[in-house]
């Protein structure tokens, strides 16, 4: 599966979760998108199902800065 599809899926799932449609890879999880721990788990389930990947450790979500970092983490699992 290519990087582009992973990026589209991550952004699509983030948009669905947050109810926004302006999410870009440059956005920061510190200042632009702040997710609760349960929302992070929901995002993790959605990505695991959509991309058929292994479980994403929850701590990974706190060890990254931007949406692009998340795309990279997910891409490694694909």
């Amino acid at each position: 599966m290519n990087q582009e599809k992973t990026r589209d899926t991550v952004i699509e799932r983030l948009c669905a979760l947050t109810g926004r449609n302006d999410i870009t890879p440059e956005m920061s999880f510190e200042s632009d998108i702040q997710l609760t721990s349960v929302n992070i788990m929901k995002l993790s389930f959605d990505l695991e199902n959509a991309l058929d990947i292994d479980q994403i450790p929850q701590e990974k979500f706190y060890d990254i800065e931007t949406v692009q970092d998340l795309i990279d983490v997910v891409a490694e699992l694909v």
Partner: protein
Amino acid sequence: MNTVSRSGVPVKEMTRLENHYLFANIKGILTFLLVTYHFISSRLTTLTSTQFTDVGVGLVVAFSPIILFVLAASPLFVMISGYGSKDTLACRNTAFSMYFVPYLALTVVMVLEFAIFNGLPIYIIPLEPLMQLWYLLSMFIWMQLLHDIVNIRFILPIALIMALVNGMVINNPVFAVSSGLGTFLSLSRTVYLLPFLLIGYKLSKADISKIRSMNRVKTILIAAAFLVLSVVLVMFCYNNGNIGFQGLLMLKGDNPYYKYIGNTGDGTGFNTFWETNFFGVIITVAFFVVAALATLLIFKMVPAKKIPFLTKLGNASLTVYCLHIFIVIPLSGILSSLSLPIALIFGYVLSFGICILLSLDPVNRAYTKIIFALGEIIKKK
């Protein structure tokens, strides 16, 4: 990134991961306290005013900070929920699945469990939450409103005044308000704890870093103030009208002041309407100050690093919070047949076991998956 404290000293700001560990650890501590409280509360509430006196002043003084810390756990939990709700639109978007769906589902399960284990009749009052489910309903209401509430001018002082007035008007025949308002939609607690949600929402990572960089003298002063005020508050209840432990229960925010500290007809409590409400407000303000001091202490003292069991428990706090009562209900019967000290020890041990069991990854993931799946089934595509 570094910020500067009021005294001009540079403050090292926590990373996102450290921040996550700190909040997970705090939630872990609070979750354990709440599970334990629910286990032993049936024994504690049997401590009537007379038994409170029998316990002895020395023991009352010794346990005052612990009692107050447990009572402060709810406001602190709500404050942490507020801190995690900065993306108000995202929170509103998932509030239905995260809070309302489990509220409905767990209400049905709980009623059935009460019928099976406690022999209670099967009836559901959907608008009156059972036991700990008030938090789910209050969170649902808060998350729907938070995006707009935070834009109201002077919302924090307004919320504080509403929280204090809450104890005067709920269920109070003087105001001829519906007798169900104390529990109806958990509105009383939603109003009572709103200031804590707002404080949490307004708190930034830089604020937390500043609290954590407090020097030893300030920390000791805050700890001393917490201990002294806790003892003063408990002794005030103890000495005024022999209100005792029951008087502290009004600090949970779902009952009017007069129910616990007003004249009960047997010569205890405050006598007039105004006297009751005046002291109700004083006790509540003192409790809010105690809760604030407890918050500062816990932010300062809890480590911002991964701690086995505790961090895991904090990460699974919502799952443990929602599910623990289903284990506690059938097991609490065992405690009622034991002496108080043995029951307390047994309660702590069982609570520890329940926390470990419910915070296991498979349990946490299964609960979250089921709840979100239920939400998907209910929602129109």
